[in-house]
């Protein structure tokens, strides 16, 4: 009973210290909530195939023929792009000026002779019928998306023209020309690979943002925890606790248990924001996966390693400023490296391998196993074990440092 009383009063003390520290509340709860909101909404269209048109494309129809009109009408239905007609006779300089003035990402020129090129026999050589001006700020990936879409529409137009030219031959052969012209939709069927093979919602920005910024904020526990620990040392509270026969194990446990719960509260709040708050602002609702056990396991593992790292930094640092700087910088490096700020799949190969060094990457992959891949506890076990091992090493080092300080 006495042990339980000690634990309860320790929990109460740590919760009061956290909730009465505006900076700690900001770092642990406000910062990740804001990040999740911003990133979920900012990246909504990047992940959402049904999102609104966001990329402007100026179009200049120098051909003016029927095929050019048909082509422009066809590309007008492309998702994620908005085509706006510009002056037919505009000089290239004027077009460039307009693009840069409006920060328009693309300008598409349908050259003279476009219709002739469409009607010509396939394989003909000559000037390209389309010209694409690209704003240098546009990523190569986005440019490739637009080019692919334009080429596909042009190919369809050529196919239709070719079928029309065959006309009587097709009739004589008993082939329905109209059926050849029908667009059967995309020939590629997309299925998301999930752990259980079950159905899952299309990955959305919120599915990516919540785990990423949740892991990031859980590791930011280093700031309040190390500050409390260093204050205890500087103010002599740690000395007083030692004089009260409070063991090193109890000292460490007295930090771990309250902060495990604080991390747990973070997990619940961030998931709640993803599920209920993000949709209020037009984002997609978070689907928290099917495995509460898996979620609890990976959350506990991330929390354990974050707290152990915080204790290690706190035992090394002499001042709160040192701990804040070391902890903050280390977190940002772990975050940048571990795919929090930039998803690892867009990183080059060697960076993806480097990302494996970051415990945040292990935590993120574990959460993605649950949130995105519909996995369970077994699926996030490898990441959880890695985090557990990392935390154990940090704790062992902390215990050694504390013992040396006592003996010193």
């Amino acid at each position, binding site marked *: *009973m*006495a042990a339980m*009383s*000690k634990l*309860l*009063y*320790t929990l*109460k*003390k740590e919760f*009061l*210290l956290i909730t*009465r*520290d505006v900076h700690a509340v900001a770092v642990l709860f406000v910062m990740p909530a804001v990040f999740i909101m911003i990133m979920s909404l900012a990246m909504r269209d990047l992940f959402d195939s049904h999102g609104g048109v966001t990329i402007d494309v100026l179009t200049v129809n120098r051909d003016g023929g029927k095929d050019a009109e048909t082509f422009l009408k066809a590309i007008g239905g492309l998702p994620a792009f908005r085509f706006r007609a510009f002056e037919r006779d505009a000089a290239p300089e004027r077009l460039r000026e307009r693009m840069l003035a409006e920060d328009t990402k693309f300008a598409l020129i349908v050259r003279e002779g476009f219709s002739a090129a469409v009607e010509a026999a396939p394989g003909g050589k000559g000037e390209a019928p389309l010209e694409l001006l690209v704003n240098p700020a546009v990523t190569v990936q986005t440019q490739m998306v637009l080019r692919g879409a334009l080429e596909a529409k042009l190919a369809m137009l050529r196919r239709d023209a070719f079928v029309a030219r065959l006309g009587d031959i097709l009739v004589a052969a008993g082939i329905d020309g109209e059926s050849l012209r029908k667009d059967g939709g995309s020939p590629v069927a997309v299925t998301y690979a999930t752990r259980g093979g079950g159905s899952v919602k299309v990955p959305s920005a919120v599915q990516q943002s919540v785990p990423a910024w949740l892991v990031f904020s859980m590791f930011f526990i280093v700031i309040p925890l190390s500050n409390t620990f260093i204050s205890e040392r*500087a*103010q*002599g*509270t740690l*000395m*007083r*606790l*030692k*004089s*009260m*026969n*409070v063991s090193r194990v109890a000292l460490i446990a007295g930090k771990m248990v309250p902060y495990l719960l604080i991390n747990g509260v973070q997990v619940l709040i961030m998931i709640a924001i993803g599920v209920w708050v993000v949709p209020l602002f037009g984002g997609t609702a978070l689907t928290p996966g099917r495995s509460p056990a898996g979620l609890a396991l990976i959350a506990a593992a991330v929390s354990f390693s974050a707290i152990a790292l915080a204790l290690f930094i706190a035992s090394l640092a002499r001042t709160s400023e040192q701990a804040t700087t070391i902890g903050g910088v280390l977190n940002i490096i772990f975050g940048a490296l571990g795919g929090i700020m930039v998803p690892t799949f867009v990183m080059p190969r060697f960076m993806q391998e480097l990302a494996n060094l970051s415990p945040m990457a292990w935590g993120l992959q574990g959460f993605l196993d649950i949130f995105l891949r519909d996995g369970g506890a077994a699926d996030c076990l490898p990441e959880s074990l890695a985090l557990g091992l990392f935390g154990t090493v940090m704790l062992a080092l902390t215990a050694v440092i504390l013992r040396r300080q*006592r*003996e*010193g």
Partner: protein
Amino acid sequence: MIEIKHLSKSYEGKPVLDNVSLTVKRASILGLLGPNGAGKTTLLSILAGVTAKDAGEVKVGGLDLGREPGRIQRMCSYVPQSLAFYPRLSARENLEYFGSLWGLRGAKLRERTAFSIDVGSMAAFADKRVDTFSGGMKRRLNLAIGLMNEPEILYLDEPTVGVDTQSRNYILATIAQLNRERKTTVVYTSHYLDEIEQVSDEIAVIDAGRIVLHDAKEAVLLRADAVLLRVAKLGKDAAAALERHQGIRVEAGSVHVKRDERFGENMAAAFTVLSEHGIGVTDIVFGRRTLEELFLKLTDVRLRDGE
């Protein structure tokens, strides 16, 4: 109550405590004086089980500190020089937290909390955050936390640093009251010699890690309260003859005559001995030599930094 034998401690090869031996009687108040860096805090932190000793023996209540630190720590309380609590908590929350770590709970915890609030005279602001307290209020809380476990021994490291006169007097009165009514043994370090003089039963002076004086307060003050006869040159025979008289002491080539009930008799004896040995008196210094003067003499007057 506390027996310290040949205690030594070094930091990075530099001795901080050097063969310290000291005894503190049960229910007494030992005032431990020493300049900065003398080893006072290190001695207290070893007694409190916070810092490990290098050599020597410490027994508290008959128990060996090296073998049974836990049992000893439960009967002691250490009040560090720094304000060792949580400023963002209220006084009551601090007291309850530290009390719970002593294993107190329920009615007992509430009772001890109320007692400590009362002793610290903090009833009016017990539920206010400590970071709004004045320096004196914080010092009283620092002491009050140390009383939560009803300690038999109280280690106080400069408990009145930076407080106003009222709080200082209150703290000193509280210590005296605890000693008088609860028979609490107190080891008390301070830079304020008048405090030591006010509350202590015994005084020890530590310098450069060594105990240079340890005696009952009255005996120490008696040494301090004397008339000084400065003489040209004092031979060994004359010194020996003088010191045969109780109340006459030879120190640094001068003759000290205690101002007690035999003062007149001793003064006459001193002049007689000096006359018999043909030694002239060059100066007579009357007046009370304060504890501070004695302290400075024992520990040297140069500046000390470090502790």
